[in-house]
């Protein structure tokens, strides 16, 4: 049980990498990058977890009640927003690539093959 969060993070990392290695389409590859990135979310949130502790919001609980680590949560929050915009940037690149070359298959788009 105590190993589970770390193994989930490692699994997400591995399966994301597998997707990137075997990808036949750049849109799929960008999706795999998202999966890969979510490994960091799981890892960070698991590091900051504490049993029997609430959210680090002291609105309905007075300050001083046990709460999980807010530092990693703040990291994950900005990570998600930046991840979304970077995904958009990559998708824009894929779109332009498809316009210029008519394909999104990494196998066909190798720079040295032409």
């Amino acid at each position, binding site marked *: 049980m105590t190993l589970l969060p770390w193994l989930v993070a*490692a699994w997400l990392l591995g399966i994301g990498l597998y997707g990137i290695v*075997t990808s036949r389409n750049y849109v799929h590859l960008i999706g795999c990058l998202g999966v890969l990135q979510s490994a960091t979310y799981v890892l960070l949130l698991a590091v900051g977890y504490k049993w029997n502790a609430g959210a*680090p*919001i002291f609105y309905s609980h007075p300050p001083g009640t046990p709460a999980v680590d807010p530092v990693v949560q*703040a990291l994950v929050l900005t990570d998600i927003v930046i991840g979304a915009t970077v995904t958009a940037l990559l998708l*824009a690149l894929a779109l332009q690539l498809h316009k210029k070359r008519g394909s999104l298959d990494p196998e066909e788009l190798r720079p040295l093959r032409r």
Partner: protein
Amino acid sequence: MSRRLRLLLFALAVLCALPAMWRIAAHMPRFGAHPLPYGDAINDAAPRERHVTNMVTAVNFDYRGFDTLGEEFMLLCAVTGVVVLLRGARGQDLDALPGVVAGREIADRADATVLLCRAIAPLIVVFGIYVALHATVTPGGGFQGGVIVASGLLLLYLGEGYRGWRRLVRSRLFEAFEGGGAALFVAAGLAPMLLGRAFLENVLPLGQLRDMLSGGLMLVVNAGVAFAVAGGFTLLFIEFMEETRAVREGDDPGEHPT
């Protein structure tokens, strides 16, 4: 490199990394039962020192505010990159018709869809503003609220179609939001320096704990982030939707000759 060779290399890399991964996982601190020195310090200090109840906001906009400034500019760069990549080809056209793929008709929208989108989209925008405004007291903040506002505006696209949506959602305004939000963040950082204090030092009155207007300078930073995120995400939607409009004479179609 052939497909099979690449898979083989990947399997080999995984085999090499697996024992190390397992060792690290087994030696990680016990899940949920190890000390959290930084988190506990923030949880202890922020309600006292900054009069806020949302610790994540305190970390993002105050204790780690300088890092968030960097992240804010990453957002700005990514959005600028998308705009540069996509706007160059077709340009803006507010009156263009939606593009049509040969052999695929565009079905009329059902009245129920239009009605639901018109009813729900403003509510979602208001909810996004609410989430952004209550950054320092309850879960939420500029990042989350900005994304919710942008998604509410995207719902209008579903209801109004390309033309109606482009008439409602002007990119000028959202460009100003995006750049102005980032500028507001920087200004909030530089303003304390004019008073001879440190960058981003919280010099404004802190307000009452559990009050919406608590947190001092965090409120200004939060507003900057909310504007930048809402503007940035809406600009992304606008640029991707521009790609769906019909190509007119004089536009550079930029398509691959097939």
